[in-house]
């Protein structure tokens, strides 16, 4: 199961847990399973249209920032994947 690092600002939803293991073959499946365990995570990660992640969220899988907003939710994960949801670079 993928190891998910919980963003510091989401730990109010996880009772302070900083990491957790969640089943899922893709980023989308992991988010759904995360939501089942910690309600509210999905709403913070997803855009209001419910179909894509918010522009302010970057997804990092095994150290690689996944580019391309249309495919990030489909990004495949392995049994040993490590998944991070991070603030995207928004300015500069």
């Amino acid at each position, binding site marked *: 199961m993928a190891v998910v*690092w919980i*963003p*510091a*600002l*989401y730990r109010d939803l996880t009772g302070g847990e*900083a990491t957790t293991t969640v089943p899922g073959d893709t980023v989308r499946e992991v988010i759904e399973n995360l939501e089942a365990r910690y309600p509210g995570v999905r*709403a*913070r*990660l997803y855009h209001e249209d419910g179909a894509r992640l*918010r*522009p*302010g*969220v970057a997804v*990092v*899988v*095994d*150290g*690689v*920032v*996944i*580019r*391309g*907003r249309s495919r990030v939710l489909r*990004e*495949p*994960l*392995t049994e040993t*994947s*490590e998944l*991070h*949801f*991070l*603030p*995207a*670079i*928004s*300015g*500069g």
Partner: protein
Amino acid sequence: MNAKDKLKTGAADGPATREYTVIGTRPVRPDGVDKVTGRALYGADVHPTGLLYGAVLRSPHAHARIVSIDTREAEALPGVKAVITAADMPEAADEVSDHGETSVNIRYQSWNILARGKVLYHGHAMAAVAATSLHIAQEALKLIRVEYEVLPPVLDVRAAMAADATIILENLRTDELGHKGDRPTNIASHMRHERGDLDAGFAQADVIVEREFTTSMVHQGYIEPQNATALYNPDGQVTIWTSTQGAFGVRSQIEELLHIPVSRIRVIPMEIGGGFGGKNDVYLEPLATLLSKKSGYRPVKLTMSRADVLQATGPTSGSYIRVKMGADKTGRLTAAEAYLAYEAGAFPGSPVESGANGIFNAYRLDNLRVDGYDVLVNKPKTAAYRAPGGSNASFASESVVDELCRKLEMDPIEFRLRNAVKEGDRKVDGPRYPRIGLIETLEAARAHPHYHAPLEGPHRGRGVACAYWGNYGGRSSASGSINRDGTVSLVEGSVDIGGSRAAMAMQLAEVLEVPVTDVKPLVGDTDSVAYTEGTYGSRTTFATGWAVYELGLKLKQRLCERAAELWEIDPEEVSYAAGVFTAGAHRMTLKALAREIDDGRPLMASATVLPETEGPAFAVHIVDVDVDPETGKVQLLRYTAVQDVGTAIHPSYVEGQIQGGAAQGIGWALNEEYVYDAEGHMLNASFLDYRMPTALDLPMIDAVIVEVPNPGHPYGVRGVGEVPIVPPPGALANAIYRALGVRMTVLPMSPGHVLEALWAIED
């Protein structure tokens, strides 16, 4: 392909073990003659038939409500062909648009281009005029009647964060990674990275240092001001000639801001006189386009003055930063905490995320917390500036690290080596590092003669700082064709700012095993090459170079197929090396084959890549200074910049990037700042008063190349352009401390600030 495999996509024999023919040499740049003879064509050289000249009316106030704008007198002036205000701009969606490395709210961008309802900084554009001459356009500006209700400006980042601060954008709410606040505020966003147990970490420390730092807003200082010429044809086709870091980025922004389909927009990137991040966002292009349409489809040119550039384009953030770090007696860092508040300018979007990510990224830390705040102030909306946000953060953390070294009586490089990150360690934001070269870079700095050279004199000191920058990949494209003389025409989508034509030609020549002079590179416009992100994020040699590499493989394959066709054999039987095709008894040079196959069927190929394996870069800088305690002037005596560059494609241009980045960082550290009066008027909007370093201010900057190839690139390339601007403020602050015993916590460390710090300790 999963993410782990992506890190293994380099050449099969690994970039670290390769020997190159072209890469690593120093050929003359293909655009060199045009550049040094003045024949290169810049935006100012564009003169379409029937050209009109534009001028922009800018706000005299830092914060004011626009009660009314009356343009009738201006429109009536003979020679005036069009006047536009925000009313001529389409309503922009409240939508964040992905601009590659960064993103931007389109509505805010629209309001920045032409003020709507309120002006939010001194110089904010309010209206624009097109006329038959520049003088008439400028006269017309004086005839535009504007009634303002002046509001108090918010100019200090901490004051802007106060609960009772004047609100700049009434609908703004603080975003905390998806959680929206419920009160009006100037804090656009708050982010946090946290791991381990901070209290336990500081409890383990034998020495703890905590300090506050402030830095001023600074500008990229490119020589060529923004300019744009637009022609809106009656058939709906728009052509824009502009000075930009990314033609496709301009096209996307025009599409989103003016609701024109991309298929009707052609953006032609002219040669560029510097950008450093400041020429990604559009300012004049939408105005020129609207004016062209409104003036009866005549071409319109707009050019900024230096004052316009400084007042109303995108500088980088001033900031307030607090850093606390602890270490034990062995020199091991036990905990680190940082608070960063960055000025975004009048609209959200400072580089605080990058500053917060990078502030401790050179160090292995189990216990850390970093908070970052993006804060509105009545100053121009910030834009990218070379390693955005990195220099501010590094100034703070490297100063504190230096103070820890002093308390522990430990050599600064030895301390950094004991804590240096390596492959597998975690970055501040959590993910693990791939192969990186910080340790090799620190060791190269320690071994450099500069580090051991005697430095005598009463007010002289040597400072050291190291720094991280993450770099960026992004989408890039290239196409190429084989000419009948065996040369190769290469069309790339990346604007050439720092010699990338040469770097692209060299990578293609390496793949095709031909002399680099046989490759003819050309920077394409948006209709002549596939989508390519801008020249930013230290990405061009990495990502566009990768596209060129893929292009070369395809061209080589197709040449083998044509040779096989000629020899009536299977393509698999053809091999190619050093410019010669062979198959059994068959043998033919590339040049001969090109002639043979010149039968009307062009041999061409194209490639697009979206690499995600850009390798982080690290730099270590050493500087010697002599400080005059009577005047506070800091004189640089010697400067050495050591950097892991992955693989240096063209070492001269790598060295140039290192030297240029260091020079900009030195200017940021010692002199540059936006100066405002209490009403928010910028007081130093010229290069006379905005004090950038000149050749007279700088010693020779000794650039030392360290090559730890990036396993995530076919040739091991890492971005090199940004990281060298990061260490100078920290290195100089540490050198000044050793020279005077004064810990500088303010940028710039100009003579006045140095004297104030001296007087403070004397008191």
